[in-house]
């Protein structure tokens, strides 16, 4: 959905303003027109344009709306603090329809029509994978917020980076120590039978084995399935933990039927909040989840020890202490993922300032500046926690949260360290030429 939850986006209004006749005045004031103050001055005060490839429609719309709200809030904060290199930041929003084909078109519009300096914001993996080659051809830095492993796996290119959110491989393997040491070593995995589920299966099987545990059963559910009871008898009796990553419209049905199958005598349950992102944990049918565990990219509920910078971030993006919109307590945010937009924008700012970025001719310098980044401390720029960027793989690493459903809220039980999520490099993008 469009410009986030709030429509009072002065940012994109400004871009419109420039296009609508007021542009001539604005450009004259900035000194671009002949006979005015000259180009150098204009260049230094012209806005930095960031193309936001947004899932405004299509299957990613629920995420797109909150990515928009977070982007607006982050850019407002950057502009309030003086912009980037003294220049204001302007976000140009284009709807990619959560469609890889359209995603590539949108990148082209950013580069050729809107004259954007960089592109940013994509979540869904297939859109990233469909768009990244075009970013490479256009030589347009493309900062994705997708958590897919495709960046670090080496399948993309030097122009595509993921500095603001960790990838699924890191998330999954960092869960294994906690699961093995606290919940149990014999794990049954239940996952949807396609790439998303297969990633979880492969990454976790390897990681739990390294912790001395084992996956005793792998139950792949066809993506079109909407009833699950017949799969549950395949869960071995010896199972100590069920690891589930169901997604899609049938996820509440899955939880309800799992509850009906086990009753009070269930094994431990561990899941990924992706299953219930933007869904109220207190929804009817989810009572069975009380006492179970979830990975969270960022804790949805404000924790007792919430840092001030996180409190400020929560207020800026318009989310209350239960992870819902401050305007409607039923409107639950995609809180576990959207911080990635905030952090990525701050990294773009830091990269541009470090590279003394002046315009598109400095795009390669910008990428090199970001590649040179390593540790980023937790704070107002990185409210989710500290990050460690790997310039070779273009992928960031960070803390992961494991929360327990307690009285219908997610309470953080364990924070996995950056080190828990590290793995061997699979690519060195810095070896590729621009």
């Amino acid at each position, binding site marked *: *959905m*469009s*410009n986030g*939850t709030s*429509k*009072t986006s*002065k940012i994109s*209004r400004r*871009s*419109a*303003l420039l296009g*609508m*006749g*007021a542009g001539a005045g604005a450009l004259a004031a900035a000194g671009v027109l002949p006979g005015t103050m000259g180009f150098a001055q204009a260049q230094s005060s012209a806005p930095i344009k960031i193309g936001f490839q*947004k899932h*405004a*429609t*299509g*299957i990613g*719309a*629920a995420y797109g*709306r909150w990515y928009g709200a977070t982007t607006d809030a982050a850019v407002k904060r950057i502009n309030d603090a003086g912009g980037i290199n003294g220049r204001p930041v302007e976000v*140009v*929003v*284009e*709807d990619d*329809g*959560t*469609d*890889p*084909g*359209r995603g590539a*078109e949108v990148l082209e*519009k950013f580069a050729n029509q*809107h004259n954007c300096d960089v592109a940013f914001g994509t979540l869904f993996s*297939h*859109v990233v994978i469909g768009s990244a080659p075009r970013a490479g051809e256009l030589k347009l830095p493309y900062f994705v917020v997708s958590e897919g492993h495709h960046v670090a796996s080496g399948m993309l290119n030097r122009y595509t980076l993921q500095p603001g959110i960790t990838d699924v491989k890191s998330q999954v393997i960092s869960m294994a120590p906690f699961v093995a040491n606290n919940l149990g070593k014999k794990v049954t995995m239940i996952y949807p039978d*396609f*790439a998303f589920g297969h990633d979880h299966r492969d990454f976790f099987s390897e990681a739990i084995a390294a912790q001395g545990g084992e996956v005793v059963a792998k139950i792949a559910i066809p*993506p*079109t399935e*909407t009833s699950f009871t017949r799969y549950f008898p395949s869960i071995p009796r010896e199972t100590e933990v069920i690891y589930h990553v169901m*997604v*899609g*419209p*049938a*996820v509440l*049905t899955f939880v*309800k039927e799992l509850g009906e199958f086990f009753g009070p005598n269930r094994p431990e349950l561990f899941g990924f909040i992706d299953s219930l992102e*933007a*869904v*109220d944990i207190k*929804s009817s*049918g989810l009572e069975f989840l009380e006492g179970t565990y979830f990975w969270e990219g960022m804790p949805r509920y404000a924790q007792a020890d919430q840092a001030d910078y996180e409190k400020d971030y929560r207020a800026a993006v318009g989310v209350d202490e239960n992870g819902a*919109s401050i*305007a*409607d307590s*039923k*409107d*639950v945010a995609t809180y576990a993922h959207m911080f990635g937009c905030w952090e990525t924008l701050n990294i773009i700012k830091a990269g541009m300032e470090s590279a003394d970025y002046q315009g598109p001719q400095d795009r390669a310098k910008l990428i090199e500046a970001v590649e040179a980044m390593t540790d980023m401390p937790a704070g107002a720029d990185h409210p989710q926690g500290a990050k460690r960027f790997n310039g070779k793989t273009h992928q960031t690493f960070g803390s992961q949260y494991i929360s327990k459903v307690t009285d219908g809220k997610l309470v953080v039980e364990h924070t996995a360290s950056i080190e828990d999520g590290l793995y061997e490099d699979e690519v060195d993008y810095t070896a590729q030429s621009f």
Partner: protein
Amino acid sequence: MAHPAEQAFVLLLPTDVYATAGTLAVILSIVLVTCVRPQLLRGFFSARDLGRWPVLPTAAVSISALASLVYGLLVYVGFYGPSDPQNNLLPLTVWTAWWIAAFVVQGLVLDIWRLINPWEGLHRLVFEDAAGPLRLPEWLQAWPAVCIFLAFQGFVLADIAPNDPRRLASFALGYWVFTFAGMTLFGRAAWLAQVECFTVLFRLIGSLRPVDLQGRFKLGFVGWQSLLDAPLDLSRAVFCLIILASGSFDGLHETFWWLGRIGVNPLEFPGRSAVIAQSLLGLYASNAALIGIFALSVWIGIKTLAAVSSETHTPFATAFCTFAIAILPIALGYHIAHYLVTLMIQGQYVLSTLSDPLARGWNLFGLGDLRITTGFLNTQASVKVIWLTQAGAVVVSHVISVLMTHHLAGRFCNKNKDLISIQIGLSVLMIAYTIFGLWLLASPRGA
């Protein structure tokens, strides 16, 4: 637009129980209506004259001329306004205010198309009543409009980015010029009646309105005016069917079932660009299928009537063109059911964008601070209300269609046995379509 939470709650609702109840309601209406003589229904479908109503042709022309100006401004905003479709008044007006909302207003409340169509008023002001130099042959009927409407539906369902403001502005400008030129060359009335598909569409849908304000204030049951139009010519009869078929496929093409047919993983929908051919093929096949099934249903009725009664001979073409108008309520009911949730979300974007229609940082009406929410899709209780409203629209529209069909059957025969016979195929179709419509609402969606 996919909203996983809403879908998840729908799957937890006892939709099979609701669907059974809805289908039984339609079956019951068929049974009851056979006990009612057509004369009684005739009274039911005749309007009450509640007195004079002022006709203000000048006002209508002025408002329509103003609509041309607004249309021009919207096209301008489309070209030069924000690139974000949910922040740009052109796509919001076209797809939400007009295609979703004005369609329903036209069918239930007032002849809004007469006021907002962006050609008629301006054309009257410029050319008065001058006929064009060329003539559209009568045998063409409204077939050009049928073809253009099918192309429009293809754009709605299969285009990669129908929301893109600049893309939409190009289409809107092109279609405006095409229509205005056509009206000028071939005459305003003929072009609007035969080629301009939205005028044909809105006249058909508008005939469902309970209120008629052309000089007198007349009030009747939904559809009473439509019955006066029957039999339609063949092109308009087919138009009634393609409104419903296209709307139905719009719902169907998002379902797990359809995605399974075209080999797409519904949890990993690859985007509209990956299924353009499939969507177009499905759309046009659905249209052909519904026309075929409807024709078969009418034919079965005629053959059954001929078998039980030797008194009458009913020409197939006349029956087809007569009964087709009874499809309109279902088309409107599907439209309401299909777009209700989209309207609830996009309507908020329309309101907040209206605060700043030219994207100049204004905050008219104080609506610019509106925070868009989809929280109503996040609780079991609100999703249940929404679902039952959608299902209600589907069931009620079928019941109205049953009543209209029965009324129309009275034009071909009188005896109760004959009336049941001629409607037998259509009754089965009504029941099957109710089941289909409620199944659509309850089906998991992935696109």
